[in-house]
């Protein structure tokens, strides 16, 4: 039991939670607009086509109308962007979770359920519990550790349990079946035309998929460095799936970032340092009065998503407000 608890609550740097939050909430906004824009088009589909999922029936959720669908769309985007800054993680986090969950019920209640976002939904459910976190903060957090571990488990469960589902619905004969052939006929690309001429290529691919999915939990047993390689392999797998049968699994890939040391990726700090260097290089020529555009940029950076880190470059003009 103690080992289980230690595994579930392995501390992580707060900076990683902050960065993961930014990734996930930015993804939610991008998902609405870019990755699954078809959800919004359900607003124009007559209600008779709506077949609510169990959770929708239990919660007595209303049949989607243009007002409901567009209302969620326009409310969720700004709230997700605000949540991406890391402010009010509990209030904004739960709000995003509730709205996005309803968005997903609207998405999946018309005859087709997708299986590419269990990890993302878990991420949205646990991030509000991860506590305050600032970008770059190296201090560790157990509640943040639990949140990330849950997302990691959800990502691996998606692989591992999907091979269970293959054995349940397809049986062991799935390995030698024409399942990939069917996928390629229905949504293939020029890349796949090379593969369809030989059935054994697809059988080998199906065999590989099953082995890959069943062995995915190994990621929790290997040293950290190997874990990064396995994660890279997962991303490569999805690139291949996208190239062959045009299925992106993007939400799952966003959740998979929970395996990465995201706290080391500091675009705003890097940009700030770069500007600092540029400014100090230019200072002798431009004199003491900093150009207005420069101080505006500094102000934006100082109040941006990375506000946790104080501005400490020596070239900072005295007029810049505190973050």
């Amino acid at each position, binding site marked *: 039991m103690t080992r289980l608890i230690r595994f579930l609550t392995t501390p992580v740097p707060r900076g990683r939670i902050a960065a993961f939050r930014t990734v996930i909430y930015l993804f939610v906004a991008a998902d609405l607009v870019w990755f699954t824009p078809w959800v919004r*088009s359900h607003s124009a589909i*007559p209600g008779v*086509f709506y077949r609510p*999922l169990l959770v929708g029936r239990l919660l007595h959720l209303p049949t989607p109308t243009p007002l409901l669908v567009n209302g969620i769309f326009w409310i969720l985007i700004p709230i997700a962007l605000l949540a991406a800054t890391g402010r009010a993680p509990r209030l904004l986090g739960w709000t995003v979770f509730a709205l996005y969950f309803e968005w997903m019920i609207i998405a999946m209640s018309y005859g087709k359920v997708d299986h590419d*976002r269990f990890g993302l939904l878990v991420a949205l459910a646990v991030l509000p519990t991860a506590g305050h976190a600032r970008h770059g903060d190296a201090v560790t957090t157990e509640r943040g550790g639990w949140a990330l571990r849950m997302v990691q488990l959800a990502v691996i469960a998606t692989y591992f349990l999907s091979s269970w589902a293959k054995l349940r619905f*397809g049986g062991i004969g*799935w390995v030698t079946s024409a399942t990939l052939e069917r996928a390629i006929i*229905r949504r293939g690309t020029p890349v796949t035309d090379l593969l369809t001429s030989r059935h054994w290529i697809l059988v080998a691919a199906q065999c590989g998929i099953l082995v890959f999915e069943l062995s995915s939990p190994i990621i929790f047993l290997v040293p950290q460095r190997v874990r990064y390689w396995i994660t890279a392999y997962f991303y490569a797998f999805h690139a291949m799936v996208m190239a062959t049968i045009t299925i992106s699994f993007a939400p799952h890939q966003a959740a998979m970032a929970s395996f990465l040391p995201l706290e080391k990726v500091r675009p705003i700090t890097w940009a700030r340092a770069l500007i600092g260097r540029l400014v100090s290089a230019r200072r002798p020529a431009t004199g003491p009065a900093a150009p207005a555009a420069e101080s505006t940029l500094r102000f934006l950076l100082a109040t941006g998503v990375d506000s946790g880190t104080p501005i400490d470059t020596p070239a900072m003009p005295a007029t810049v407000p505190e973050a």
Partner: protein
Amino acid sequence: MKPTVAGAASAPDRLSSRGRLIRVVVTLAATALLLFGTLWGQDDLFPFGPFRMYAVADRLDDPVADTRFELVDTSGAAVELTQNNTGIRRAEIEGQLGRFRADPSLLRVIDQAYAARNPNAPAAVTLRIVIRWNDLKDGIPTGNYHDETVAIWNPPAVDR
């Protein structure tokens, strides 16, 4: 944890035993729900249903269904209907194919969705769902196929 006191922010954030207990219970409950869904559930149990993408074993000599939906408009032109011009995904049509078979007038849903997205397009006189059955031999397409019209419906003129 709210770092309101100076110094508190730099202390590692440790869970209370209650916090730990709650998290372990939540973890086990979610795991149980997911295992139940995987073993006995269906898609209806979303998000805890089985991850059944491409889980069906298609037989090597069974034809592969490629479903399409299309309309013929008043100008006589055939328009292929897609997610882009109707907002309805093909898999959603396939997921409710039984309803279209039983009641082809349900095609009015597609007609209305198309009209809503293409207000200036000529009205539809016929809508239909067609499955193209691609023949397979030992898991390889033979190039032969036959089309099956699953549902066909002519909107009444007053509809548009």
